[in-house]
Every structure is written in structure tokens, then in C-alpha cells.
């Protein structure tokens, strides 16, 4: 009995492979209708399926395969020519066989369905040849009847067969294909050629079987684990001090080390699979979808041989499929629109995979309509994902990233293909789960590229080992940006606290700081000793990135980088979001692996609600370069801090009170041969309290479009380079808006307005200069 089971299992696996091959060949045949070899290979595969299942006693499956085989043999012998309709029918047959196989897998029985409609369709298609004109187009009557058959099929609601619209289109195509005369020669040549191909293919197939064996994935996983252990044991041995005393031991341990590394590499390789395994499914997906959407799409693939770990292949399968479907459905336009835009009617979908920097890059490029960020923004607002105010501040890139938010879809209507808004966020989370990233590049009416970066393998990852509160933790290196060490004076200089949130000024940008010991609750007793003494003098910051957010993690000590073997946590510990797993270190002790995203989330949750500065910070961090501005911070009267865009500031001057003069009732000052209007900001803003007592006044010379004015301020505070987050528009004349800068509410001066009101006429100035010259 078990022998029988094994035979069935073997049959299922083999058939699955065969069917994939059949699909591929069929699609290839569609583009190269004279591919006799492909036809022969299809025939062989279906024949094998038929033979095996008759042996195993699956009569329904056998009968379907037999019908298909008959049609195929006619095709192979050149008695009838391949049309789109036949291809579609054969593909449906592949689906039906798959369905039965699934049934066998589950219940050891080939199911109740007998696919009568499909069979009669296949038979009918054979009859095209019975008409006696083998090479010619199928008689119109045949098409007609086939269409009837389709609608009939549809009425009967037989699953997995044909959609009428699809069939119609195909019949048309079929008629077209059949008119192509190049098939006429095949009748004579076809037969011997086909036989040859069959033989050649068979011997080739044999050699492939001889040189490879099927291995249970479970066994590979076990081997992988054991090699992981071996790596750890080797690390332990290499750290052993006895080694240094004994040269012979040293030699053999070095050898051990070498062999272990090679073994590790070898085992990793056994788990590597070409990405072609996933890519191979896409031509079919794209074909079916394109038909359903009424589009013409050509798919091209590069780098099918790019290999990555089996678990990763599994993990990226669904996200990739989704992206491909998405490109077909939303990306590539209908042929008419394409033509109107001056593109070829046929859309192009390009899949590329390649290695780069220890990672695998996968690109999905379409030459479709691109993503309209304006529409993205509108939809996002409509769906309540973001507010209009938020959108107005977003850069193009941020707008694009909105499509990854849950509950988002720009498709004008929900189709069965996509547009339910459950996709892109899942794609993103799935990719990030395996330590990958996803990026979009798009150009309106030109096309869109989704770029995925995924690691080669998950089992062994490079990690940074850090210590906090005498406990060691590992941080996966993928999320690591840089390490910052602050000592003594620098700590006060660079680390600020705003409203309970610690931030670090890192190259002019504010980096929110998280204290690992606080997050994991180690500060209480474990970390105290280190906190008191050393913490005052040295702060180690690990700058991390998760989900587009940067933050600094303050740790006690930064130790080393190490290759670690990731082990899952037991179920007792699964619920702790800050740990991604555990690993065994070189010294045999266990260390926990930090989950960077979990850390960020946990810390994010701990921040009190409504703390504006915090959300600003994360916003501005996400904002990228777009809104960075250099600002001059000044103080005027009681009104607190004012900001002036530095780009408009010409000079900072200190002037004597006595230098002030009066012209037509306004205060002016002679400045470099000009008469500069002098404005007391405190008067304009009505903030009062300006100190008149001093002899020296601080003047900011503003220059904009050849117009200049002098502004009197009380004090120059600082120059900062920051993202300006407009909190609200200002109602007061002379002020543009209010923003939070360096943790303080700061009014931004409306320089334009001041200049317009006070500056001397622009025409006057150059004229005056000319006279002087």
C-alpha cells in the first residue's frame, strides 16, 4: 500500500512539473507557431500523464488526458494548425488536470467532475481537421459552433473553463493565425521532425533525471540547521584559548573552520533555486489577465537564473504575483489609449532579477500609464487615509508611498483582478517581513518600475552584537545605517530633550533616540551600574531604519558584527514584539535578536498621544530632502522666536542708533551707497518691548529681487537647517505661518510682504546707481 502511495506521490510531483512545462510550451507555441519541438514536448507530457493515471486507475483523468492527446497528436502531425482557440482549450485542460490532481492529493480519488464540456470542446476542435482541409483556416461554422459551445459551457457554469469574451477574441485570432501560410510546409516535414524531437527530448529528459535527484525539503532544512550548529561549534572552538598553545591543534582547527565554511556554502546552495521558478508562472498569468482586461501585453524576463533561498522564493511568490497583476491591470493601458499616446499597441512588462551587493534585486517594469500622484493624493484623502493638509506637505515620493497604506486603491472601479485595496500594503509588509525593501519609480504616461530588494537567505544573517544592561542583543545588519559615538561634551551638545523625547542632532537633522534599556525594562537593576558611571561619558547610538523611519537606539556597548543563525522563539515568547528570534553566540550563550520594526512601534506607542513634536519629527524624517530649509532665527520683543529664510538674508549688520535718518517720514539708513528702508520689526508685529536704550542695533539686511530692506531685531539667535513643518497659517500681517523649529513654536516672517510694503521702487534703484557711476 505504501508503495502505491509513493507511486501516487511521485506521479503528482511529476505531473505538476510536466504541466508547468506544458503551459510554458503552449505559450511559446502561441508566439512561435512552428515550434515542433515544443509541440512534441507537450504531447509527450500529456501522454505521460495519461499513461501513468491509467496505470494508477484514475479513469476520468485518463479520459480527459486522452482527449487532449488526440488533439495534440493531430497538431503534432500537422493535420490541424494551432489557433488561439485551441491554445485556450488546451490551457483549460491543463487547469482541469491540475484540479483533478489536487483532488487526488486530497482524497486519493480523481473527483466527481468529468469535464464533459471541455472534452467535447477538445473533440470538436479535432473535427476541424475532419473537414478535410487540414492546413486551412477552421471553417467559420466550426468557430461558430465553438462559440456556441462556449456560451453553453458558460451557462452550465462549469468552473475553470472559458469565458465567452475570451473565446470570441480567440476565435478571431485563430482565423488570423490560420491564414499564415508558413504552416504548409510543416505537413511533410512535421512528422519526421516531430519524431526526432521526441527522441532527442526523451534522451535529454533522461539525462536530467540521472544527474539530479529529488530531495525532501524537510531534510534540507534539517541539514541546514545542523550546518548552522556546526558553524556555531566552530566559532566556539576558535575562541578557545587552548588553541594558541598547540600548533597541531591550531592547524586542524583552521582546517575545520575552512571545511565548515565550505560545507555551509554548499548546503546553502542546495536550497538555492532560480527565480525562474516563479517567473515561469507569469507568462500564463499575464496572458490570462491581459485577455480578461482586453489588453495586449508582452512579457519579457531577464535573469531567470538568479538564485535565492527556497524559503525566500516562497515568500516573494505572492507579492510578486500581485505586483505583476497590478501592472497588467492598472499599469498598462488599453491598446487604444496606448495608441493615442503614441505608444505601440502592445504593452511591455519586463521582469528583471539580478544580484547586487549580496542582495537580490527584482524589478517589475511596465511601459504603462505611470502612477498619477495627484490621483493617489485624492484617493488617499477620499479614503480617509490622510488629510488634505498632510498631502499638501508631501513630496512626490511620499505621495507615491501612499499606495502602500492599508485600504488604498486607485483603480476607478474594483475589478476581479485587483482594486480591492488589500494588495499593496500586504505586498509591502510581506517583503519587509523577510528583510527586503520595495521602491517605486514612476513617470506619468511612460511607465512604472517596482524595485524589490530581498536578502539571499534568511537562515544565516550578519548582525551587530550590542550590550545593554549586561545582556547581549543582536541587531540584523539590514536595518543598520550607522554607529554614532558621543563622548563628554558632545553629549550635551548633540543630545536634546524635547517634551520628554530625546533627540540627537545628527548632521543637522533631528534623530529621535530610543533607550534600549528603557524599552526592554532593563534599566531598573541590571543597567544601573553601567548607567551611573559610564553613561555620563559615552553614548553609543545605533542608527537604525525601519519602515522608512530612522531612529537612534542608545545602547551601553557596541561589540562586534557576527554571522548568526536565526532561531525562532518558543511560543511562550512569541508575543513580545521587540524580539525577532534568538541565536547562539560563539561562547554558547543565547542572545536575543531585536526586531527593529517592533522596537520602533513599541517606542512609538509609548509616546504620549497628541505630542505634536514627536509626530512632526517622524513626518519630517519621512519627508526626505524636499522641505529642508536654512533659517535664521531671531528674537524680537516679547513675541518669541522668529524665523527668516536665510536665502533672503543678505547680511547681518550692527549699526549705531545715530546712523538712523529719516526720509519722507520713514526711518532709513545709508547702507553701501543706498538708502535702505529701516523697519523695526517689533513695530510691524506690534510685539513691543524693543530695547531702545542700547547704542547698537542688530540689523538684518534682506535682499530679494534687487530690493533691499533693513530689519531691526533684538537678537540673532541661531542659524538652523531644518525641515519646516507648517503647523498653521498665520493671520497676522507680516507673518507667514507658525512652525515648530527646534522644539519651539516659531513664526516665519513673510519677507515678501515686508519688502513689497517697504522697499523703495525697484526701478528707482538701478537708475540711481547709473547716475552715480
Amino acid at each position, binding site marked *: 500500500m505504501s508503495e502505491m502511495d509513493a507511486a501516487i506521490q511521485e506521479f503528482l510531483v511529476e505531473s505538476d512539473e510536466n504541466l508547468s512545462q506544458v503551459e510554458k510550451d503552449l505559450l511559446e507555441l502561441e508566439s512561435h507557431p512552428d515550434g515542433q519541438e515544443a509541440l512534441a514536448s507537450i504531447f509527450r507530457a500529456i501522454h505521460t500523464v495519461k499513461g501513468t493515471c491509467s496505470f494508477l486507475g484514475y479513469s476520468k483523468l485518463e479520459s480527459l488526458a486522452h482527449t487532449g492527446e488526440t488533439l495534440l497528436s493531430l497538431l503534432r502531425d500537422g493535420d490541424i494548425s494551432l489557433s488561439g482557440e485551441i491554445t485556450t482549450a488546451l490551457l483549460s485542460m491543463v487547469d482541469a488536470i491540475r484540479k483533478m490532481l489536487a483532488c487526488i492529493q486530497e482524497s486519493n480519488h480523481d473527483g466527481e467532475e468529468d469535464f464533459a464540456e471541455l472534452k467535447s470542446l477538445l473533440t470538436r476542435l479535432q473535427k476541424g481537421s475532419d473537414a478535410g482541409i487540414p492546413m486551412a483556416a477552421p471553417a467559420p461554422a466550426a468557430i461558430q459552433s465553438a462559440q456556441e459551445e462556449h456560451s453553453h459551457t458558460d451557462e452550465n457554469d462549469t468552473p475553470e473553463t472559458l469565458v465567452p469574451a475570451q473565446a470570441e477574441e480567440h476565435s478571431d485570432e485563430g482565423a488570423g493565425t490560420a491564414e499564415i501560410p508558413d504552416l504548409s510546409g510543416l505537413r511533410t516535414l512535421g512528422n519526421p521532425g516531430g519524431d526526432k524531437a521526441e527522441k532527442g527530448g526523451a534522451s535529454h529528459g533522461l539525462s536530467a533525471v540521472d544527474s539530479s535527484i529529488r530531495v525532501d525539503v524537510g531534510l534540507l532544512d534539517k541539514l541546514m540547521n545542523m550546518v548552522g550548529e556546526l558553524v556555531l561549534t566552530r566559532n566556539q572552538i576558535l575562541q578557545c584559548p587552548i588553541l594558541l598553545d598547540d600548533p597541531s591543534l591550531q592547524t586542524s582547527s583552521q582546517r575545520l573552520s575552512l571545511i565548515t565554511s565550505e560545507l555551509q556554502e554548499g548546503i546553502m546552495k542546495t536550497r538555492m533555486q532560480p527565480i525562474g521558478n516563479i517567473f515561469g508562472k507569469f507568462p500564463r498569468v499575464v496572458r490570462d489577465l491581459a485577455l480578461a482586461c482586453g489588453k495586449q501585453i508582452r512579457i519579457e524576463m531577464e535573469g531567470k537564473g538568479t538564485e535565492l533561498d527556497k524559503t525566500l522564493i516562497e515568500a516573494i511568490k505572492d507579492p510578486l504575483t500581485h505586483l505583476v497583476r497590478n501592472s497588467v491591470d492598472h499599469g498598462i493601458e488599453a491598446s487604444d489609449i496606448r495608441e493615442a499616446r503614441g505608444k505601440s499597441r502592445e504593452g511591455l512588462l519586463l521582469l528583471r532579477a539580478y544580484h547586487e551587493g549580496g542582495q537580490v534585486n527584482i524589478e517589475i517594469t511596465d511601459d504603462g500609464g505611470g502612477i498619477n500622484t495627484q490621483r493617489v493624493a485624492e484617493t488617499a484623502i477620499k479614503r480617509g487615509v490622510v488629510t488634505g493638509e498632510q498631502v499638501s506637505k508631501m513630496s512626490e515620493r511620499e505621495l507615491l508611498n501612499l499606495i502602500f497604506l492599508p485600504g488604498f486603491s486607485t483603480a476607478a472601479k474594483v475589478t476581479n483582478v485587483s482594486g480591492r485595496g488589500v494588495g499593496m500594503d500586504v505586498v509591502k509588509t510581506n517583503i519587509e517581513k523577510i528583510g527586503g525593501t520595495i521602491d517605486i519609480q514612476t513617470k506619468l504616461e511612460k511607465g512604472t518600475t517596482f524595485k524589490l530588494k530581498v536578502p539571499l537567505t534568511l537562515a544565516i544573517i550578519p548582525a551587530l552584537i550590542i550590550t545593554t544592561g549586561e545582556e547581549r542583543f543582536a541587531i540584523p545588519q539590514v536595518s543598520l545605517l550607522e554607529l554614532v559615538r558621543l563622548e563628554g561634551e558632545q553629549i550635551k551638545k548633540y543630545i536634546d530633550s524635547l517634551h520628554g523625547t530625546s533627540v540627537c542632532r545628527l548632521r543637522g537633522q533631528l534623530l529621535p533616540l530610543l533607550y534600549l534599556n528603557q524599552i*526592554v525594562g532593563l534599566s531598573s537593576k541590571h543597567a544601573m551600574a553601567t548607567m551611573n558611571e559610564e553613561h555620563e561619558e559615552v553614548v553609543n547610538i545605533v542608527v537604525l531604519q525601519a519602515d522608512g523611519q530612522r531612529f537612534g537606539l542608545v545602547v551601553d556597548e557596541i561589540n562586534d558584527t557576527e554571522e548568526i543563525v536565526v532561531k525562532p522563539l518558543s*511560543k*511562550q515568547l512569541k508575543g*513580545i514584539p521587540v524580539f525577532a528570534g*534568538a541565536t*547562539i553566540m560563539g561562547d554558547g*550563550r*543565547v*542572545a*536575543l535578536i531585536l526586531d527593529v520594526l517592533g522596537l520602533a512601534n513599541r517606542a512609538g506607542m509609548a509616546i504620549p498621544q497628541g505630542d505634536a513634536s514627536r509626530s512632526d519629527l517622524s513626518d519630517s524624517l519621512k519627508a526626505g530632502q524636499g522641505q529642508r530649509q536654512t533659517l535664521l532665527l531671531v528674537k524680537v520683543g516679547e513675541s518669541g522666536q522668529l524665523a527668516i529664510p536665510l536665502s533672503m538674508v543678505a547680511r547681518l549688520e550692527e549699526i549705531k542708533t545715530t546712523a538712523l535718518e529719516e526720509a519722507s517720514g520713514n526711518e532709513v539708513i545709508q547702507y553701501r551707497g543706498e538708502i535702505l528702508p529701516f523697519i523695526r520689526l517689533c513695530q510691524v508685529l506690534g510685539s513691543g518691548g524693543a530695547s531702545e536704550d542700547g547704542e547698537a542695533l542688530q540689523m538684518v539686511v534682506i535682499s530679494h529681487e534687487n530690493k533691499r530692506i533693513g530689519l531691526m531685531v533684538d537678537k540673532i539667535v541661531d542659524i538652523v537647517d531644518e525641515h519646516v513643518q507648517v503647523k498653521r497659517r498665520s493671520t497676522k500681517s507680516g507673518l507667514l505661518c507658525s512652525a515648530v523649529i527646534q522644539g519651539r513654536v516659531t513664526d516665519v516672517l513673510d519677507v515678501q510682504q515686508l519688502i513689497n510694503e517697504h522697499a523703495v521702487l525697484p526701478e528707482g534703484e538701478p537708475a540711481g546707481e547709473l547716475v552715480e557711476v
Partner: protein
Amino acid sequence: MSDPQQYCTFYLANLYFGVSVLNVQEVIKFQPMTFVPLASRAVSGLINLRGQIVTAIDLRRRLELEDREDSEPPMNVVIRTDEGPVSLLVDDIGDVLEVSDSSYEPPPSTMKGVAKELITGVHKLEGRLLLILDIAKVVMVPQLKEV
């Protein structure tokens, strides 16, 4: 039901406990442990058992008994579960006992708290009582609630 059962026995704060030997993978002496922050109090940490990472549960804390004094390092009773081995930290290890069903009695209905959930029965032995633990429940440590 007359088949005698074999129990691996151990001591916890003067109480005498037993788990079916069939559940026990091995008994080992105290191992250095890695503390797991944010985990339930009952989880003592992680040990490296010949390359396998095993969660150690402090049975005293799990049963809400008072903490053991530091002087005596606990023993690990490594239990097989469906999700891999789990270690139980106990004060001291006893013998493997063979007891007959005749001495068995369900736990008194007056038993309170965690013990009521985790103790499935009592064997009346000479001079003392052997408390039988429900292993499946013991290893299901409640998650620490978010602070």
C-alpha cells in the same frame, strides 16, 4: 486503567510533584541562562541545549510559589512538547516512581488559583502526597500584558 504509571518526581518548596516520564526528555543541571526582557515573570530565560534554544520556565513562579533562594541553583527538567522542548526549573530532582491507579484521587475541590488549573490529581503515597502536573497547561505561560 490498572496499568501502573511511571512518574519523574521533583521537589518545589517542600511540595512533591510528578510528571509522566514519557513527557520527560532529560534532566540536566543548572545552565547559564539568557534573560528575556518583557517576558512573563515565569519565564526564566533561554538555555542552549546542545545547539537548541530552549525556554526555561521557573516552575515556582508558574505555580505562584515564593521565589527560591539564590544559594541553591535549580535543576532543569526538560519536557517534550509538540512545539519542541521546554525546560522546567525545579528545586531538586527526585526518583522515578511507579505508582498504581489505586492511590490516585482528583485534586480537592477546595484548591485555589493557579494550582487548581495545573494540578490534575494527587497520588497518596506513604508519608506524603505526589501532585501530578498537567504539562500541556504548565508550558502555556500567559503572555505578559502590555504595560
